Each structure stands twice: as C-alpha cells, then as structure tokens.
C-alpha cells in the first residue's frame, strides 16, 4: 500500500512541482495587488478588484480556453514568447502552473488583503517618525505583521493548485509526465474499465497531501502568532 506505482509517483511529483511554482510565481504579485487594493484609492480600483476576483466565478473551462487564446502558439503572448525566446507555454507543465496560478490568485489576494487591512496603520506612522522611509516601513513593519495572512494565502493557493482540473485540462491537456497532475491522473484512470482501485489510491494520496499541507500551515501559523506576541 505504501509503495507508490510509477504513475502515482509521477502524478504526485508533478502536482507538488506545479503547486510549488504556482505559489512561487503568484506570491509577490499577490502581495502587490493586495496592497494596491487595500491602500490606494484610484479610479478603476473596483475594476481591478473585479478582474482579480473573476477566476473565482468563471467556469475553469472558460479560463483554460482564454489562456489557450492568449498563451497558445498563435496567442497574443504565446506567439512572441515562442518566436523570440523559443518558450512554449501551452501543453507544458509551465502552462499548468499558469492555469492554477490564475485560478488560485483571487484566494491568495483575499487572504493577504485581509491581513494587510488588519495591520495597525499607527505602527506604520510610528516607524516613519523613527526614520524609516515608506518602503522600509513596508519591509520592516507591514510585511512581518502580514506574515500569518501571507502564509494562509500561500497554503490556500497551494491547495487550490493541487485540486486544479478544468482550466488545466483545457489549457495544457492531460499529458503523462508533463501535465498529468493528481486530479488529471484520477480522471484518466476512471476512464478505463476497472480503474476503480487505482482511482481510490490516487484519491487517498490527494487527501493525505491536503491534510499534510493543512497541518504544516497550522504549525507555521502557531509559530508566527507566538512571534507576534499574541495568544498561542
């Protein structure tokens, strides 16, 4: 039971790889967008808010299709990327990262924005009077105080990426070893007659990974809260 089959190993490894890169590429833009939405008042803020939250309400298949239009070989961005740099996004694991990053982005931004809004702006004023420029105030006061929210957002995005199916299969298809993550592998084995046992194993693997991610985040969050001096 504990021995993973090559197919399972491949799917699990790919899932973790995609989820890791999904969080890695969206974290900094996520913090930036959360900051802009929480702190700046400008015309078009509601529009930006809407665009960020769109993937939450759009059918994933539609997102996958739009990504294909934009990042395909003939796409708006996909064509120059391929022509100038020889980089292909569609039908590669990089595309899977983009698909799940887009889908997970609203969750990430929401969690970070909530934590940013909870930061006492009085502490930031205090830092200014002590000689910190705005940018250093952000790095030395705001960011550390937001850490629990950033962590929560990252875990949410990670989990959402592990579960991503619709946008991924539409945008990058279901290629073994390239884009066949756990949910896609589960879908594949279900298409075969007699794949029930395999499907069960894949489902269990997915559940275990999800629980481990939750436990890790809870542990980290506790340590962070202790560092911030509030209740354990």
């Amino acid at each position, binding site marked *: 039971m504990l021995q993973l089959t090559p197919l399972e190993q491949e799917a699990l490894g790919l899932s973790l790889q995609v989820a890791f890169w999904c969080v890695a590429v969206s974290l900094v833009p996520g913090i930036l967008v959360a900051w802009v939405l929480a702190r700046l008042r400008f015309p078009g803020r509601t529009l930006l808010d809407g665009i960020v939250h769109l993937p939450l309400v759009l059918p994933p298949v539609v997102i996958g299709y739009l990504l294909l239009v934009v990042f395909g070989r003939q796409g708006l961005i996909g064509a120059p990327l391929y022509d100038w740099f020889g980089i292909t996004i569609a039908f590669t694991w990089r595309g899977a990262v983009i698909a799940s990053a887009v889908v997970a982005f609203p969750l990430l931004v929401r969690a970070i924005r909530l934590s940013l809004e909870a930061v*006492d702006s*009085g*502490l930031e*004023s*205090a*830092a*200014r*009077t*002590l*000689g*910190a*420029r705005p940018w*250093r105030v952000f790095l*030395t*006061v705001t960011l*550390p*105080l937001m850490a629990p929210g950033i962590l929560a957002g990252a875990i949410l995005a990670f989990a959402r990426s592990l579960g991503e199916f619709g946008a991924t299969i539409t945008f990058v298809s279901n290629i073994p070893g390239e884009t066949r993550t756990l949910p896609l592998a589960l879908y594949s084995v279900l298409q075969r007659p007699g794949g029930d046992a395999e499907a069960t194993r894949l489902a269990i693997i997915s559940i275990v990974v999800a629980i481990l991610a939750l436990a890790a985040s809870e542990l980290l969050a506790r340590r962070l809260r202790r*560092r*911030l*001096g*509030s209740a354990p």
Partner: protein
Amino acid sequence: MLSWDVEKRFGDFALTTTGDVAAGGVHAVFGPSGSGKSTLLNLLAGLLKGDRQAIRLGERWLADSTRRLHLPPEARTLGLVFQDGRLFPHLSVARNLTYGARMRRLAPADTPFGEVVDLLGLGDLLRRRPGGLSGGERQRVAIGRALLSGADALLLDEPLASLDQPRRIEVLPFLDRLRAANDTPMVYVTHAIDEVLRLADTITVLDRGRAVAAGDVASVLNDPATRPFVPGLAEETVVEAQVREIDRVNGLVRVRAGGLALALMGGGLALGSTVRLRLAARDIAVATEPPCHTSVVNILPGVLTALERDAEGRVHLDLDLGLPVRAIITASSAARLALVPGQPIHAMIKAVAVDRVRA
C-alpha cells in the same frame, strides 16, 4: 529650539497656534480632548500637513508653507511618543529600542543605548516582547525608542493617559529624570494638570483649537482668566522659588520668590536651586494682628487687595505678600475680622502645607 506657527482645518474645526521650546525645556500643550493637542503633534511630526505651517528645528526648516516645504516624518528627527505606545509587536524590546538607529543608520556608539536603558529602567525588559509588558513598561520602552532614534526633540502625546493611577505614578518619576538628565527639548501634550506642574517649564492652553493662554507655567496658571480652562487646578497659587537657605537641623529650607519669603520642608534640595510650589488657597489663614504663640512657621505681612464671596459662603481673598497669593476663608471669619480691600493683614502658611511639585 523647536518653534512652530501652524494652522489646520478639519470641517468647522480649526487649530491655530504658535509656540517654541528651547533646549532643555519642556513645553506643555494643555487642553481637553478635541482641543487640537494631538493634531499639533502630528503636524510637528509631519504625519499631518498644515494648511499653513512654519516649523523650525534649530536652524533647519521642517515645514514652510510659503515655500511649499514639507519634510516627511522620517526626515524630521523628532521622536514622537504615542499615547498607546505603538511598540512593534514582532520585535523584542531591544529591537524596538534600536529600530530608529537602524533606520537612520546611526552607529551604535552614537546612540546612548546604555544610558537610556538605565534612565528608564529597561534593563530587565530587553529580551521580552511588547505583548508581555505592562502598560507602564510599554510607555517607558516607547519613550526610550523615541529617544534612541536620533531625535533632536521629543514630542509626547499624553504618554500617561492610557495608564491607571498606580502605573502613572510609576512612570512619572522616569519622565522627571528624563527631563533633568536630557537637553532634548520636549513638547508634552496632556490634559492632566499635575503632569504639567511637575514636568513643564512653559505651557500653551488650547481650547477648541485656539490658544487661550501661553507663557511660563506659573504665570499662566495663576492668571484668573485661564482658570476656567484648567479643570483639576484647585484654587491655589503656583510659585517658582529659589532656595536661599538650608536649615539642616530642622529639615527646613528658606526660599524666595519675588518679594515672598517662605520656609518649607526641604529634604534633598540644593542651595540656589529652583523649586516649584503649590500653595493651596484653603491652607492659608489670615490675621489682622501679628499672631503670637502659634505653630505656624510662615507669618507673612501683606495687603488684602480684593475679596469676593461665593455662593457657598466662602470668601476668596487676593493677597499681596510680595507676590499675589490666593486664600479662602469662611464668610463668618471675614465678617468677624471686618476685612476690607486695602487692609494690611498677616498671612499664615504652615511649612508642612507647602506642596513641592518640582525640585
């Protein structure tokens, strides 16, 4: 020297005030909440921008609306101590204290870390986090943090207002020591008159954004016109006096303020030093003949300049004892002595009733 001339409007509220505080001086800004005290500090610190402002620290202009000059808070080198401390919860006390020095890239040798830690009694707190400190400890750390940020002046925004009475009494002596040990000019915002009497040299009394009085503490507080704006000030006379003679055998000192000579209990006072005294009006008795066979040490000849009976049957006396001094007696005593303005009297002030508020 920190000086300001500022104006700031919010809706129908307008703060207009000028003032200055010299090196080694403490300037109190006194007034009820909503009078614009904190607004003034935020303007000085650069957290707010005045509609009209001219703020100067020594030779350096921090803000000048005629030249559209408005330095950001980080460029002003003014240490602001907030009412609620505002310590960084994610940093230890030691890291909070050194935050300003790190941001301003001051060399450790250039900041008096050890002295400030000793002065404010922070030695045992350095490794702790703000979350575990008491209110009084927090305020002491906040004061130390502002001092160690390379501040050329300190702005204190009701630093004791969030504390209960025992904590206030615990922190006040530290502020007193800070004032004595430090040349940094301080602007001290408060609505507690005992803090003004203990700490301040000069004062601005604010009422709804308007300065109703300004000047040195004793003359402002003794002015009857200011009294309605100073709740908590009992009927009393504030006297700045110089120590002229020390009688160690009896534990008395003789002090002089203008034409007024007084004896009081004087432990720990040095010859020539200045003391601030409160003479409560109800502790002062008068006699029309020089009294003899009395325990009262201070029997001061003077003139009754004015008297006024209030609704409760007390009579308020204005005495000229070389300095104007207020006294309160009963209406029946006033009638019995047949007191009239212009009459010579002898004021009697017990040495033990003279309240020293500032050594």
